[in-house]
């Protein structure tokens, strides 16, 4: 797997009675967008380029991945989940209601994440 740079914005969401859980998402604009997934075991983030024509209009990761997670070295097959709908906290994998997240679109930053490569 290779890493690519992603422009992100930061937000804060709620899970149950836990508030101000920091999450990030790729900044979309001008028809460019990416989407985050995470390893449900360790929480490592991966990015899917939604401008990849191989997705054929889908905005979801449909293929299963035989790659191993670069951080926890466990096979990602069946373990990769959407982020920030799913986040890994110290207590384990939790579901977050995206509608609770408030993003700050005014400030963005660039960081490298693992690319989920999809080929036609």
């Amino acid at each position, binding site marked *: 797997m290779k890493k*690519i*740079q*992603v*422009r992100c914005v930061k937000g804060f969401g709620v899970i149950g009675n836990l508030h101000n859980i920091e999450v990030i998402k790729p*900044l*979309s*604009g*001008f*028809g*460019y*967008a990416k989407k985050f997934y995470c390893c449900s075991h360790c929480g490592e983030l991966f990015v899917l*380029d*939604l*401008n*990849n*024509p*191989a*997705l054929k*209009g889908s*905005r979801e990761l449909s293929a299963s991945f035989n790659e191993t997670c670069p951080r926890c070295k466990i096979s990602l097959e069946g373990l990769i989940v959407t982020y920030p709908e799913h986040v890994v906290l110290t207590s384990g994998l939790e579901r977050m209601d995206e509608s609770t997240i408030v993003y700050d*679109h005014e400030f963005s930053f*660039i960081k490298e994440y693992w690319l989920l490569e999809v080929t*036609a």
Partner: protein
Amino acid sequence: MRRFISFLAGLTRFATLAVVLMLACLAPQAEALLTSSDPILSEPIPSQAHAPESYLIIEDIHPLGYADDGECLDLCICVEPETLTRVFYIVKSPTGLWAWDNYWIETFFNKSFWVGSGQTTGRLATRTVKGLGQAGLIGSDMMGYGTSSAFGWGDDYQGSSKLFKGIHEDPAAFGTPEELRDKILDGTGKAVINVGTLGAYGMIKGVDHAVKTGDYKELQDASLQAFLLSLQARSLQLKSVNPWTGAKTSPGPVSFVECFEGTPKPVLYRAIDAQYTLSTVENGFYRSGVPGRLGNDGIYASSCVEGAIAEAQYHNPGVELVVFEVIYPVEPTLYVSPPTGYFYIESPLPFSGGVNILSAPSLRLPGSMNYLIRNEAIPGGIVQ
């Protein structure tokens, strides 16, 4: 029977005369309301904050109409003279700015798409009556529209206003500008007759029906009534009172969406990730449906190569890019400058009507323009 019919006709004429007289009486009240020293009305209207005292008119775009004494009202595009960047609108007349009009213009522009389609406004506004603002169908409809949009009913109202919708969608179907004007005047006459025959009953019935059912069409279609109601509604709104329910509400933020007819460039440009070049050449631009400032229902392009690269580099840092020419059907665009709240929307930009091309100033490369071409954008040659 004839006597009865004659009696009814006479009664109708009398009612018409009575209501017209009533409206004539209301007109000065309406004017007084606008210029009232009522402290509530004297408070700065939120939209006025957008209009600095000094401004530079860069283009007169829409003659809104003429008063009986020949006074011409113009809607102008203006900029702040110091920065020359922020565009806003002002209605000017020989006697000065119509500051309160900015309020209406703003709400009007907020929800309106037929302003954005350009000439329709210029053609539609055929007359004004001094003191009453614009009493023609378009004028009162504008006011009613402004009111309804101010309270979030604009879309509904737009849908019910068949004449304007028709004119927006196919102005040519209404004939020459002269024929179009005649139709509008005819519509105005019908509106006046409607007011005359139904009078206050129609207004009350319309309000009552709207409050009970949430269906404002009946109320809103009473064009001239809408204007008068709008004055009352505005007064209440300034007091943070919902005019229909009477409930005290917190005033929401006033967003300012500027819309007018823009000029397209003959050639546009879009930069893509170089690894998708072959796919783009073979299959055209990939429509991912991902969000953007102008919505998600088309292909984004820039007016210049540098602009296309600036946008792509911002959102795809570190990626090797290829810049394509964008071939598309060149036609007038709907120029919008969405406020922050409309950024990154996951749907088509609302209230933009059926236009094929939306345009907005670029945030990444000031001076360049961004376009969203909804249909028929295909890749041309690779320029870089």
